[in-house]
Structure formats: structure tokens, C-alpha cells
């Protein structure tokens, strides 16, 4: 055939007749986080009405703080879930990170900064092991990380008991390096009469980074692909193993970060803490529109999910409702958020993806 042959132009214009350009509003509505955003606004307004104590900047920032302590790890968990995997060990890794740092430095009298770095290495190793085992054995991540969850939970307790003779870490606020690490991980800014914890800023930063990576980089593309269809992704040359192991390590990095915050904010850590939080991270991700089966979701959705959770959690207290019913309210709010989310999506399009 001749090299000057032009592309067959005949069919193209003909087909465009049933081409529909979706309006901006429809395009917006189809994004995973928009449903969560609407749900967040509905719940926000609801609590402004029923909880007078919530109507202050102070309260709002307390909610933001609460959301950030869940939200930072949830950023990683959300990315991991988009990549098609679970991590049930994230909650206890947070505690393990802090305990490691505190006890290591306290017992050996080492500068806390050294301990923090070693603790990071330790956490990344946990993430690596999780990811590597999942990929190499083919056992579902739910099970592997459930195993690490139990192991870390037991080790947190066992090691702490062994070293300190109690179930909480030693107080480290007199040790070298404390003030620097406190400033990094637990500083509080006082602006316009309100207290802004640094974790909120870190959180927003991580969300922005995750958003950028997911939408705008090659790695982000790969994350969606390995979550959507790992076999197809492998077939076009995506390094599935590296991507997934990287995601597990991202989660454990963020868990370490949160662990550092707890340690340098509260100076001690209880060895039994963190259990149960792994589900809060997953809830945040899912409420924010992440698909449980992978391949769909985004960073802003996850952030909104964490915010909804933090808000509901505290506003029930602000509203002064009977704490015995606390969990029931939480459940109703969760269902509400999810249903609003769904309804908004239905509004925008009946397109089925399968």
C-alpha cells in the first residue's frame, strides 16, 4: 500500500451523529468524590442545626484534627484499595511505629531522631513484607494483613510489657530531639484565635500529593490499572508487583507518620491502641467513593470520607446525644452518607460500568 494513504475519513463524521457531549455538570457529577461531597455538606448543615456547640471555628478545627488523624493513613489505604488490595494492619502499625521509637530511644538513651528514622525503616519493612507476601503467594491481602495485624498487635503488647513492664511506652518528652520532632509532627498554630494542628496541614498536603499522583502521573495510571484488572495490566507491561508493594509501603509510611504524631503529641502510647482503626481508614475510603474491589476512587473522595467520619463522630457529642446510642447514630450517618453518594451518582448518569 502506498505510504501516502490518508486515514479513511468516511466513517468518522457519520458516527458522530449519536455522539453526545456530556455537560459540565454531568461530568462533575460522575466523579467519585462528588457524591461524598454532597453527603458531607448535608451532614454538615444537619449538625449546624442540631448541635449549637458545633457552630464555632474552634469546634470546626477540632473536627478537622480528628479527621486528619484518620485521614492521613486513609490517603494511603485509599490508594491501596484503588490498587485492589486491603491493609488490615495499618491501625496497629501506627502504634508499633510510636512504641518502637519511644522504647528504642528510651532504653538505649539514643537521640529520638535516630529512633524515628529507624522506626520508619521498620514500618517500611512491614509494608514491604505485606506486599511481597501478597504478591508472591497469591493469598488475598485481607488474610495476609490480618496475619500481620495479629502479629503486630501481639508484639506491641508483648514487647512493651517485656521492656517497660507495663502496657504503655515510657514518657519521652525529656529526651534529645523531642522538641524538633514535636514541632514537625505535633505543632499547633494559633491563628485568628483558633488552634490549627499541624497534622491538618500535613493531611491536606498528603491528599494533594495523592491526588496528583493518581490523576497526573504514570504511577497513578498503573495504580488504577492493577486495581481494575491486574492481568490486563500485566499483559501491557505494568510492573504489577512493584506497584502493589509500593502501595503497601505507602500505607506503612503514612502509618508511621501518624504514629509519630501520636507519640510526639501525647508523649506516651498505650500498647493496645490502634486496634479497630484499620476499619475507620477503610470506611473513610469507601464512603469517599472508592470501589471495594479496586480500580475506582480518588484522593479527594477519601479525604471527604475521613472528614465525614470525624464530623459524625464528634458532632454526636457536640449535639449532646445519649452516648449509648452513639454507634446507632454513627451507623445511620454512614448509611445516609453512602445513600446520598449513590443518589448523586444516579442523578448524573445511568451509565453502567462493568
Amino acid at each position, binding site marked *: 500500500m502506498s505510504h501516502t494513504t490518508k486515514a479513511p475519513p468516511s466513517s468518522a463524521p457519520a458516527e458522530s451523529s449519536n455522539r453526545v457531549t456530556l455537560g459540565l455538570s454531568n461530568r462533575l457529577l460522575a466523579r467519585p468524590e462528588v457524591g461524598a461531597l454532597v453527603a458531607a455538606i448535608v451532614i454538615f448543615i444537619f449538625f449546624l442545626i442540631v448541635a449549637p456547640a458545633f457552630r464555632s471555628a474552634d469546634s470546626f478545627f477540632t473536627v478537622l484534627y480528628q479527621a486528619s488523624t484518620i485521614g492521613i493513613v486513609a490517603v494511603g489505604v485509599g490508594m491501596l484499595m484503588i490498587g485492589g488490595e486491603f491493609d488490615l494492619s495499618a491501625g496497629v502499625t501506627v502504634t508499633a511505629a510510636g512504641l518502637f521509637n519511644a522504647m528504642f530511644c528510651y532504653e538505649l538513651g539514643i537521640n529520638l531522631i535516630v529512633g524515628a528514622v529507624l522506626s520508619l525503616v521498620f514500618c517500611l519493612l512491614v509494608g514491604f513484607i505485606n506486599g511481597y507476601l501478597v504478591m508472591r503467594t497469591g493469598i488475598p491481602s485481607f488474610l495476609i494483613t490480618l496475619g500481620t495485624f495479629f502479629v503486630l498487635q501481639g508484639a506491641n503488647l508483648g514487647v512493651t510489657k517485656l521492656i517497660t513492664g507495663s502496657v504503655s511506652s515510657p514518657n519521652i518528652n525529656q529526651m534529645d530531639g523531642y522538641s524538633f520532632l514535636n514541632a514537625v509532627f505535633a505543632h499547633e498554630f494559633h491563628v485568628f484565635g483558633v488552634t490549627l494542628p499541624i497534622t491538618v496541614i500535613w493531611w491536606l498536603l498528603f491528599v494533594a500529593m495523592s491526588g496528583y499522583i493518581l490523576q497526573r502521573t504514570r504511577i497513578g495510571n498503573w495504580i488504577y490499572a492493577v486495581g481494575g484488572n491486574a492481568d490486563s495490566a500485566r499483559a501491557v507491561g505494568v510492573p504489577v508487583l512493584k506497584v502493589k508493594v509500593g502501595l503497601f509501603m505507602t500505607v506503612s509510611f503514612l502509618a508511621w507518620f501518624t504514629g509519630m504524631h501520636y507519640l510526639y503529641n501525647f508523649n506516651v502510647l498505650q500498647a493496645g491502641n490502634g486496634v479497630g482503626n484499620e476499619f475507620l481508614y477503610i470506611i473513610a475510603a469507601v464512603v469517599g467513593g472508592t470501589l471495594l474491589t479496586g480500580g475506582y476512587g480518588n484522593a479527594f473522595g477519601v479525604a471527604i470520607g475521613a472528614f465525614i467520619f470525624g464530623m459524625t463522630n464528634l458532632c454526636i457529642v457536640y449535639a449532646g446525644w445519649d452516648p449509648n446510642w452513639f454507634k446507632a447514630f454513627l451507623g445511620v450517618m454512614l448509611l445516609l452518607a453512602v445513600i446520598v453518594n449513590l443518589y448523586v451518582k444516579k442523578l448524573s448518569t445511568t*451509565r453502567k460500568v462493568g
Partner: protein
Amino acid sequence: MTDTLHEHADPELHEGEKLVEMVNVGKTYGAIRALKGINLTVKAGEVTCVLGDNGAGKSTLIKIISGLHPHNEGELLVDGKPVSFSSPRESLAHGIATVYQDLAVVSLMEVWRNFFLGSEMTNGTYPFAGLKIRDMKRIADEELRKMGIVVKDIDQPIGTLSGGQRQCVAIARAVYFGARVLILDEPTAALGVKQSGVVLKYTAAARDAGLGVVFITHNPHHAYLVGDHFIILKLGEAVLDKKRSEVGLDELTRQMAGGDELTELSHELKRPGS
């Protein structure tokens, strides 16, 4: 389209050069034997057609070349050196691009992201370099239009396209990225006459640009339109292995259909008006 091919094709290709060679290759899935004693050579500037019944082992054959399943027996040579690909990435790195029969696309991802998956265009090489999203959308749209496929929205999840449209995306992608060897597993099966024609033209163009092509099909007519070399598999073994000059369309059709069955069939089904 042809421009695309020439832009992307490896300029070092010489017609007739042996790109991929299989020597006595065999493959078992657990207790199931899928291939046995296969010899096949993919030469630059030639189309090798692999034909065969369902379950004959055609897909297995190309999965070995493209690094999806390693072979158990025999040798696979790429550019004369023995290799055993442990992942499709390695095969892609040798310029071998594949359209799989059953692993085409990631349903939930946008059309353009699927098109560039694994070979994204970025502003640099460092890991967090930004994607050239606008360029990628434009190119994906252009390449698809060249195949006569106009998707309603290049941003729509590929799962909402029709089966044939999805197949076209996978083919367009392989053609765009295949630098040395292009492997097509039943590319025209789900396609209409027009689209099939386009794919055949692409195949011919790739050959003319000097690429080695492996073309798998059930349709001896399609095969004969573009093929230089024909291999028929049966139960995992090659039962025919001939150059174009040694075999005619009639023989090919007869071999594929298992003797005279097709003639008999059109006899049996004989209807008024035909």
C-alpha cells in the same frame, strides 16, 4: 496510520531478518498439554499466520512469545539469543507488542488511559513526572479515528464501549507501540467487515514497515489476504507449516475445515435464493 508505523517502527529492521524463533517449544498447564514441538520463525517484513480449531493452542503459543506464560520445553530465541520472558514487560522491552484475545483492556479506566497504559507519555523520566494528558487524549482519539472508530467521549470508561470497539482500541494500541514484532490474537473476530478491512490494512502496513507480524485467525480468507507463511495447529501440534508459495487458499480452507466438511455443509444448508 502509516505515518504512525513508520515513526515508531525500529529503523534497524532488515527484511527477512529472524526476529523471533521457536525451536521445539512445548507447554503444559498442570496436567493439560497445550503445545508440543512447535517450530516457528517470525521474520522482519513477513506475516506469519497461525490457524487452528478452538483449543488448538494458538493463544498459548502467542502468550509464550509475549511473556505471559513461560514455556516448559524447547527454546525461544529473540534476535538469535535464547530467552525465557518472565513478564510481558520484558517482551515489550524487545519491541514485541501483543493484542490478547481475552486480556484486552481495564474496563473501569478511560479510553485514552487504556490506550497508553504501560507506555504513558510524561514530561520527564523521574517517577512523579506529570502525564501529558492533552497529548495522549489527542493521539488516542486520532489513532482510533484512523481505524474508523469514533468514541463518543475519549474520557468514558472503556467498559461502556461495544465489544468490537474495545477490540479496536487494543489493536490500535499495539500497532502504535509495536516497534519490531506485532502479535494479533484473533483481532478480527469481533469486528465488522469494515473494521476487519482496516485491521487487515494495518497488518499489511506493519509488514511493509518491516515489522514481523504474527496473525492468529479462524478465517482462512483473512489469513490469505495478508499472510506470507501459514501454520495450522491441531491439538497443540503443527499439522501444516508452509510458505505462501507452497499452499493455496483452497488447501488452507480445506485443511482448516477438516477436509470436505464445508462443501458438504453449504450443500446441506442449501436454500432457495442462494
